[in-house]
């Protein structure tokens, strides 16, 4: 998450008044970018991963693990080092293993207990680069650790198991119920103090007209009370008007209830961004990666605990969606539309709803028939020269209000900036993001971000999933793969991915035949690179076979079949596709062995030989001597879990050490 310049942030009623202006200016900035960059060509493949960490302070004496709010100090210390490094005067011993690699880059995140780290320079496709990813991730973790207190650790759990519990789960301690979040569970100090963040949280709450509401079904163990009424909810608070929420039924039976942005945006993710060769390839990748989002979400599942309770879901996604859901009751469909413009079916943080590629294989039937778009904005974009599909995409993103507006930015429209455009673009947190080149640079192209994956506990896993997705994109482009399904099926898949053990127990809609049925023999590349039917084709006829009904193109498949291929040969599988790609390029022995380890991890996660992080955490809690089979994850269990996760990040399950079930499959 990049930080915007400081300024005077407008509170909600004022921000709302300026929303139209920000949208209009944002669209003009987008059109300016479009005009400058739509012809950008031949950008190389560059990609980057983002790893997010929780900073956890371990108290050996009290046997407690707490979230540390030391983000600012850690970042300051990291930044000082990075500056020294860049000036070549770093006193820090520069690990020889990382000779020639730029020092990693650390940035703040929403949670004041979080860090985000990216490689110092983006990766290329050269296989030597792929070999560096894992060691670079480990290096990042080491560097982060050296800037923390001796008892603090960078932990890659998606969520802290006891965030928002009654005790002192943060250090230093602050009492809950501050003016920005108005949460009865977490203090305002939980969020990054940069004005952007409290404003974001406060304006989401104000716009919505009440606090955000997260109800996660509790995992019912044999001693869990029936019905389960979240015992941590306080019904007698009277500090803020929003304290009425729970008295109005915000907390549901049999659910763990949470009421603040921090419960969602305080989650750690693994995100990958690719630079495409040009806008056409970017649009292709955006569309083709979209159906993979829910599959990779289920495969990376790592989130079975919230607020001290085992829950019945395995992933973080919907919690984040609910944590930033700024929709009003009218937009949600709970009240008739009076003041608002639309019913909006999804949160700003949700699976994506558009396909954008000008691809002859994209059938009308794949598009969302109920897509909400701002027709005026769409019209303006089309007038400005943008094609219908892409104009629809942005006019869909721009149905939202800007949440954080700095009054200084409203004085003059600067078409050489992207601030107003980014205001909306970067607060549409969909599982895919299509990113135009930033203005003012010539060396960054059109990019696509893949955002659904959960962070994994070890860097080996994080490298494996990052590299897997990179290789999948190469296979998509090389084989011209077609993963299109109606986009509403992807939305459904996203829900399916939440179920406990969805990776093995559920089936997902997926396209049966990923190969293009129009053989290239019947297509000819015209000089400008677009495909056109060839009259001179030696194979004669160029009439494509008639398309069958859309429903016949996809079916419900297990993740094992999608990843490894169906045994009956009906689906080739993503790993065999990637291997076939690797067999078509020159890969040196060392790299291929490295890649084999990564592909093997993913293959065995998909077929159940290896556990997901979610399953491992569940088993860890269930077999802990202090666990009473009442769904409660106590301080003691949390402490041991954090210690185990830290050990795992170092030993990686080797020789029967902790975590072998999800990393190696045997002791």
């Amino acid at each position, binding site marked *: 998450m990049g930080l915007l310049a400081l300024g005077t942030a407008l509170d909600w009623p004022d921000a709302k008044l300026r929303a139209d202006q920000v949208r209009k200016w944002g669209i003009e900035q987008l059109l300016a970018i479009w005009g400058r960059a739509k012809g950008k060509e*031949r950008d*190389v*493949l560059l990609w980057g991963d983002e790893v997010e960490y929780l900073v956890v302070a371990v108290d050996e004496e009290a046997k407690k693990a707490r979230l540390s709010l030391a983000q600012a100090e850690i970042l300051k210390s990291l930044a000082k080092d990075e500056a020294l490094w860049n000036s070549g005067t770093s006193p820090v011993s520069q690990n020889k293993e990382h000779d020639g690699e730029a020092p990693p880059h650390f940035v703040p995140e929403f949670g004041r207990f979080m860090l985000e780290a990216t490689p110092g320079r983006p990766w*290329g*496709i*050269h296989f030597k680069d792929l070999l560096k990813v894992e060691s670079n991730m480990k290096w990042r973790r080491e560097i982060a650790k050296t800037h923390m207190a001796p008892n603090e650790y960078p932990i890659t759990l998606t969520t802290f198991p006891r965030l928002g519990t009654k005790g002192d789960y943060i250090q230093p301690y602050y009492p809950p119920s501050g003016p920005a979040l108005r949460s009865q569970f977490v203090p305002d100090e939980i969020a990054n103090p940069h004005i952007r963040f409290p404003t974001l949280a406060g304006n989401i709450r104000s716009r919505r007209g009440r606090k955000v509401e997260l109800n996660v079904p509790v995992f019912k163990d044999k001693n869990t009370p029936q019905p389960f009424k979240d015992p941590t909810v306080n019904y007698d608070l009277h500090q803020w008007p929003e304290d009425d929420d729970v008295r109005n039924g915000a907390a549901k039976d049999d659910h763990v209830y949470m009421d603040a942005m921090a419960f969602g945006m305080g989650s750690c993710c693994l995100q990958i961004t690719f630079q495409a*060769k040009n806008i056409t390839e970017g649009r292709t990748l955006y569309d083709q990666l979209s159906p993979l989002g829910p599959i990779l979400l289920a495969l990376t599942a790592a989130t079975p605990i919230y607020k001290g309770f085992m829950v019945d879901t395995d992933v973080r996604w919907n919690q984040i969606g609910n944590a930033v859901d700024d929709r009003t009751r009218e937009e949600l469909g709970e009240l008739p539309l009076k003041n608002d413009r639309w019913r909006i079916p999804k949160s700003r943080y949700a699976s994506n709803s558009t396909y954008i590629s000008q691809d002859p294989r994209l059938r009308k039937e794949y598009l969302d028939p109920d897509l909400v778009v701002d027709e005026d904005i769409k019209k303006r974009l089309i007038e400005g020269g943008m094609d219908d599909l892409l104009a629809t995409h942005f006019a869909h993103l721009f149905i939202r209000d800007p949440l954080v507006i700095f009054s200084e930015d409203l004085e003059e429209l600067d078409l050489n900036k992207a601030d107003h455009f980014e205001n909306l673009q970067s607060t549409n947190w969909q599982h895919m993001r299509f990113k135009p080149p930033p203005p003012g640079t010539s060396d960054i192209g059109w990019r696509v971000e893949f955002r659904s994956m959960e962070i994994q506990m070890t860097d080996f896993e994080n490298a494996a999933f990052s590299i897997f997705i990179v290789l999948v994109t*190469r296979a998509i*482009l*090389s*084989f*011209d793969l077609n993963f299109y399904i109606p986009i509403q099926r992807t939305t459904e898949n996203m829900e399916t991915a939440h179920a406990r053990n969805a990776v093995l127990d559920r089936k997902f809609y997926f396209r049966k035949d990923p*190969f*293009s049925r129009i*053989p*290239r*023999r019947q297509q*000819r*590349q015209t000089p400008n*690179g677009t495909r056109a039917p*060839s009259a*001179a*084709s*030696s*194979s*004669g*006829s160029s*009439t494509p*076979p008639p398309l069958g009904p859309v429903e016949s193109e996809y079916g419900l498949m297990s993740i094992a079949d999608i990843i*490894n*291929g169906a*045994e009956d*040969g009906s689906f*080739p*599988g993503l790993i*065999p*596709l990637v*291997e*076939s*790609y690797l*067999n*078509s*390029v*020159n*890969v*040196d*022995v*060392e790299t*291929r*062995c490295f890649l*084999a380890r990564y592909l093997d991890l993913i293959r065995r996660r998909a077929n159940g030989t290896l556990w997901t992080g979610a399953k491992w955490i569940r088993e860890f809690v269930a077999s802990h001597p202090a666990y009473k089979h009442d769904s409660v994850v106590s301080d003691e269990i949390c402490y041991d879990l954090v210690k185990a996760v830290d050990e795992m990040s170092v030993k990686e399950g080797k020789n029967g050490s902790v975590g072998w079930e999800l990393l190696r499959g045997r002791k």
Partner: protein
Amino acid sequence: MKLILSTSNIMTVGGPSVIRPVTTAKSNVELINSLRSNFQASQQPTADPTDRRPAAAWTHQGPDALYIPALDPSSPGLAEERAEYDITVKLFYLPGIPASRRCAHTREAIDLVLKELRVDSIDLLIVSFPGILFDAEDDSDEEEDTRSSDNGSEEPDDFDSMIQTWRALEALQEKGMIAQLGVAEFGSDRLARFLPHTRVKPSVDQINLKDCCVVPKSLILYARQEKIQLLTHNDCNDILPVGTTRELLGPAGAGILASTSNAKDGIEGDVEPQWVVKYTAVVKDRGVVENKGYFALADMGSCVKPRE
């Protein structure tokens, strides 16, 4: 008569055929399936199974060879400029074919690839000699001299003939047609024996994928010392057996050859595959395989040359 079989660009035409079934470790499935599907696509251009074109309509009889299928004269070549690509060619000299023919075979194969991709040079030519099996277990190359072919007889691919072949490759390299040369399945002993005889050293030694994680240390060290890159592959040793060729082209396949050498249901005579070449064009900075395919050449009928 020569038969020139081709797959066209299998990255898209091949579709499912390029994906190995999960169960087979290494095989020539890719070559066989992509040949078969290219024949089918050319023979039967529409989905209608009765719409089967006669051989003359989809093959091309050139002055020196029968092209199966006919090569597309409007083939566009590569989409971007030549410098954007890494073009790798792997030439399989087949078992039982005299080494004396390799010089001509190499030219033939390279010419077809250059024409298909519309380029005038390739970046890497890897040659695969028959009968060499890389054995990672004890790091000694075994020569499988006893493998039998359908013709019954089999000569060992002796060292001198490899050197002789290499001379021809060096000549092409020096002409600028090939930037780098490579070998396949060489262990460190064989490399050490081979190198002193070369003017142009191999830059690459390609070894089978199955063994890649147990590569002998001696080979890794030797390759590093000699600046030879160890690459992996997944190709089959005997990539195009005689029987398979007849099956592909016979009445049950393309319908060009007779079912046996003296049957009357197609072109008569013996069929003898001479070489197979695989080519790939990869966009360097993006890692995208844009074009990949095979050519295979077989001698047919009365033209099958006598063994020396």
